[in-house]
């Protein structure tokens, strides 16, 4: 649930998503679910000359499993909070494993 919550804090931010087939898509993160499926608005495809087939798409749903990276705005990420949440999640997982 850590990254689900993390992405919820980033809604309405502009992110760039790189897919496993190398397509890079920039857009506004509108929503995310537990599978890290993502809905993007105001979509721009980078390298449009290489991937012209998405030029007319303005918003999209991206299946979480095809995502390789999400490039994030650094100023919108609270690193201290994120690391604390990670330690808490790790402790929870350790508790479950016993």
């Amino acid at each position, binding site marked *: 649930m*850590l*990254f689900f919550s993390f992405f919820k804090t980033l809604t309405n931010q502009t992110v760039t998503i790189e897919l496993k087939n190398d397509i890079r898509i920039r857009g506004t993160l509108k929503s995310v679910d537990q599978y890290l499926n993502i809905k993007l608005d105001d979509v721009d495809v980078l390298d449009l000359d290489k991937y012209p087939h998405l030029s007319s798409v303005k918003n999209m749903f991206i299946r979480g*499993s095809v995502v390789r*990276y999400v490039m994030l*705005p650094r100023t919108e*990420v609270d690193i201290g909070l*994120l*690391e604390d949440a*990670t*330690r808490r999640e790790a402790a929870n997982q350790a508790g479950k494993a016993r």
Partner: protein
Amino acid sequence: MADSEDTGAAPSVSEPLDLVRLSLNEMVFVKLRGDRELKGRLHAYDSHCNLVLGEVEESIFVVEEDENEEETIRTIKKQEEMLFVRGDSVVLISPQA
């Protein structure tokens, strides 16, 4: 939960992901599927090996064939300031100095 071995003591390395936990806010080396490698500062991870890295340098290794049909490896380097990496691409995570 309340094992006698971990009462009060500093959390130790007892399972694989504990090694990753000790690398929080440290530089790590991550090998990915598709001939890619990352170096960056680890800010978050979960049990799927989803990661958030800062100050990232990505290296992509591309095999190219020159006119003599000899294979050379070209390395493409990219920088990112903050990057989420989906865990299913991750092959290994290594603490590095």
